[in-house]
């Protein structure tokens, strides 16, 4: 993962913003896909995360990897995001302009497994989702604990519970 030094921020904020969104757009996709069930909520959450990244960029602390920082911002927005049930009112409409576009058919060979994986994540509570997402990204337990501000043993218990749920699901 790339570390962005504060010195790199001397380029204008606008350019930096576009650069980090372009480089790490996958983070936003994975978080919105995990936290929202319908695409209207996903689009709203994407907008909210992008707005918050723009807003928080001024206070970016280079003690963090940019990916960790983005994860923190995006997870905080996703957890506190108010999900309005728009599935009914927008039942017959489609979003013409999406901020992030990705067709899961591009992963044809893994498509079904991926859908199942996202289904499994969406069944977890918001905090367990955050733990699992960071775990899947390869963060170690102490990094996850620091991002959530809980103890490492708490993280370990949560991961154990997620493994249990996964086993039950597979059985």
């Amino acid at each position, binding site marked *: 993962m790339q570390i962005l030094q504060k010195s790199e921020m001397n380029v204008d904020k606008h350019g930096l913003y576009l650069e980090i969104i372009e480089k790490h*757009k996958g983070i936003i996709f*994975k978080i919105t896909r995990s936290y929202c069930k319908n695409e209207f909520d996903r689009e709203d959450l994407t907008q909210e995360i992008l707005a918050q990244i723009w807003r928080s960029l001024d206070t970016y602390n280079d003690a963090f990897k940019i990916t960790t920082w983005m994860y923190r911002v995006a997870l905080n927005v996703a957890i*506190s995001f108010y999900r309005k049930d728009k599935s009914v009112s927008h039942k017959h409409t489609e979003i013409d302009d*999406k*901020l992030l576009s990705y067709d899961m058919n591009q992963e044809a060979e893994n498509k079904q*497994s991926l859908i199942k994986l996202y289904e499994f994540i969406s069944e977890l509570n*918001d905090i367990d989702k955050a733990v699992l997402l960071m775990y899947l990204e390869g963060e170690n337990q102490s990094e996850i604990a620091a991002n959530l501000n*809980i103890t490492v043993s708490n993280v370990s218990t949560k991961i154990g519970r997620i493994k*249990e749920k996964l086993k039950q699901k597979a059985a």
Partner: protein
Amino acid sequence: MNLEQMQSMWQDHSEKLDECMSVNKSLLEEKKIESKKSELNKLIVARSLESFLFFVIVFSLWKYIVSSWGLTAPVVSAFILNIFAIIGLAGNIGQIALLSKIDFSKSVKETMIDLIAVRSHNLNVFKLIILSIPLYMAYVFLGYEIVFDVDLFSLMSEETKIAFASISLVFGGLVVYLIKKLKPENRDNKLIGWLFNEVSGERLTRLLDEVDNLETVSA
């Protein structure tokens, strides 16, 4: 599938995303400019407008008190209402300060606690403001004076005054009871739960649940 297999699939998925995903740059530009419309900013703008409104009320009431100075019911009423308007103004300024403090790049728990502080602050200001309900006659006395130029209190009989004072006492008891009950732990009560959601929003309930989820270590 176990967690390790899941992790390896996730890594492949992440690589694929970086390769194949596209960002709508023109829309991103548009939304960036609109970032002022983010939920947090909307709340700050709403609180600022409310603060301005409370400031106008405080200013107008002081103006009235100074211009009509004397120990009359309308002036005393204006003074009482002024205290509540100041509470409202201070409460809104406090909300703006708390909202400005929110930093989404902090740890999840810290951010949740900051967000809960905003919602709880809202609830506490509401509790202080509803303390004005037992003093409802202050609104009536001041309204009569401003609209009809009549000091209603001086025209009331002793019996009427006692009747209104008794109603105020009943309201006082009800308000104290409500304030004591309006706590997150009493959300199971239908009326309290409804009022709690109306005042502090469903979000406080959700955020409190999230912090509980963070702290929970056993299944």
